[in-house]
Every structure is written in C-alpha cells, then in structure tokens.
C-alpha cells in the first residue's frame, strides 16, 4: 500500500514541502499553535494514508505531553523532526533507558 508524506507546521514551513509536491499539509499559524497544533498532529497521525510526518523541532514545545509522547514513539507513521535541534527528540532518552549510556552525547563529543 502506498502512503504519502504529510507536513505539519506554520505556512512558512509547509510551503517549501508543498513546492516539492507534498499534498497533505496542516497549516497552523504561529499564534494558534498553542491551541491548534495538538489537533492537527493528532489528525495526521490517525490518517492511515500517511507514512511519514514532517515537523519542525521547535513545534514539539507546543504539543501537550500525551501528543508529544505519541510523536516521539510513533512508528506508523514515523515523525521526522527537522530544524534547530539535534532532531533526536525523545530518541535520546529512549537510548539512555534502553542501552544505559547516553550514546548521542558521546557521539556529539
């Protein structure tokens, strides 16, 4: 079954992806992120036709704890965050918990 890529974020963030052909996009202006981003992300995550969700790192801060946890652990669809941060999201904590060592920290050094 073929799936598509979805983008969630501000219109400035999503425009570039739409230029590359991404059809499924959820535009949430910066001033509405506090209230709207949770619903937008949940909608996309529940869509079976979506295989990859692209978000900006900074937008994770606007998500509620539950949605953020879902975003960080979701495998189908997988959420890829790009932007200012390391992009690891909750992956770093997961690695620390599973392996017992902060491997990402070691690699950064």
């Amino acid at each position, binding site marked *: 079954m*073929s799936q598509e890529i979805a983008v969630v974020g501000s219109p400035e963030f999503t*425009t570039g*992806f739409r230029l590359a*052909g991404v*059809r499924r996009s959820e535009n949430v202006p910066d001033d509405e992120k506090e209230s709207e981003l949770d619903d937008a992300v949940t909608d996309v995550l529940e869509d079976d036709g979506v295989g990859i969700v692209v978000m900006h790192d900074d937008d994770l801060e606007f998500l509620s704890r539950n949605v953020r946890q879902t975003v960080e*652990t979701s495998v189908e669809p997988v959420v*890829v965050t790009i932007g200012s941060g390391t992009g690891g999201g909750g*992956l770093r904590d*997961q*690695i620390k918990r599973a392996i017992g060592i902060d491997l990402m920290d070691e690699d950064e050094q």
Partner: protein
Amino acid sequence: MAKDVKPTRKNLMEIEDRIELSERGHGTLEKKRDGLIMEFMDILDKAQDVRGDLAQDYEDAQKKINMARAMEGDVAVRGAAAALQEHPEITTESKNIMGVVVPQIESSRVSKSLDQRGYGIMGTSARIDEAAEAYEDLLESIILAAEVETAMKKMLREIETTKRRVNALEFKLLPDLYDNQEYIEQKLEEQEREETFRLKKIKEKKEQQEKEERQAEAEDEAAPDVGDESTAEPDMEQSTAGGVPGGD
C-alpha cells in the same frame, strides 16, 4: 515466597527443571540483547550521518526558498506550490533484524523534472525551480531518516523488552527459584535427619524392649526353681507331717 512451596521431592525436581530452563533462557536472552545492541550501534552510526545530511539539506532548502520569496514574492512561491500535480509516494517493505521487523521505505515521484512540476515555466523563475529541487532533495533525506529512525525506535523497544526480561530472570525469577530450591533441600534434609533420629529412637526402644523381655525371660527362667523350692517345702512338711503319724 520460599514458604509457599511444599517441601516435597516432586516440587524440588520441578524447581530444578525450571532453574535449568530459566538459566538457558537467560543466557539466550543475554545473547539476543547483546546482538541487538551491536546492530543498533551500526544503525546509530548511519542515523548520525543521515541526520547530518538532513540538517544540511534543510539549511540549503531554507536558503533557496527564502531567496525565491525575496526575489519572486511569497504569493508567487505559494502559487507555484499550489500548482503541483505530481505527489511523492512511499511504499514500505520490511526487513528482519534479529526478530525485529524494520521498514525499508521506497519512494517514488520525489525528484521531478521541470515539466512534471505542474507550474508554468514562463511564469516562474529559476529561483523557484532551485527551491523546489532543494526541497525534493530534502524529502529524499527525510525518507531515509524516517527509515533509519523507525528502525532505531523499533530496535530500542526490543532492546528494552529483552533487557527487562533478562533483569526479571536475573534478579527476580532465578533468585526466587534458588531460594525455593534451598528451602526444599533444607526441609528435606531436616526431614531426613528427623527420620534417622526417629529410627534410632525406635531401634533403641526396641532394643530396650528386647533387653527387658530377655531380662523378664531370664527372671522367668530363674523364678520356677525358686517356686519349686517354695512349693517343695510344704510337701516336705506334709511328708514329714505324714511321716510322723506313720512313724507313730
């Protein structure tokens, strides 16, 4: 826990079987955990490279779209974006790494030629084309990152589960089983000692009884002689008494 089991030989044998199985399982799970961690290290190295490329591609794409916005205006860029007809699609196949099913994502229609993009060549500038191309490259990197990160997440889950199982066996199940085994062995030894002591006591009692019986028999044997003497006396008296009249 140890008090819950009945100290019987059957239970001891069952516990010994369970210990053997648990120890074997513990060893196997430890090997699986170590193998998964080794595989994970390889994927982590790949993920670091992919992340580096992704950050670079995103930076390039942002520069190019900002340039296009500055030169053509935001409306023109949005207009070009809205005209797109070909949409990238992904199909997922799976690969098995030590029992963990990880995806292999195949993409199609990500990189497009100018005429496939849908917006008119005449109405737009090369800046928009460059931005579109940069975002197409970014999408390729995102798809690769998605594949690697999904594999990482799945492997981390499996590592965590295996680690929990290993710890449960090592720190809970096996110590409990060893406790139970020790408890039953102690109880059985105690029972054995009690049994030996009891048999010893019975033997002593029996010996004592036999001794008493022998003594009684000996006394019995000795007693009839004394009885004869005592009974003989009256006879003798009688005989003497009888003899007197006879003598008279």
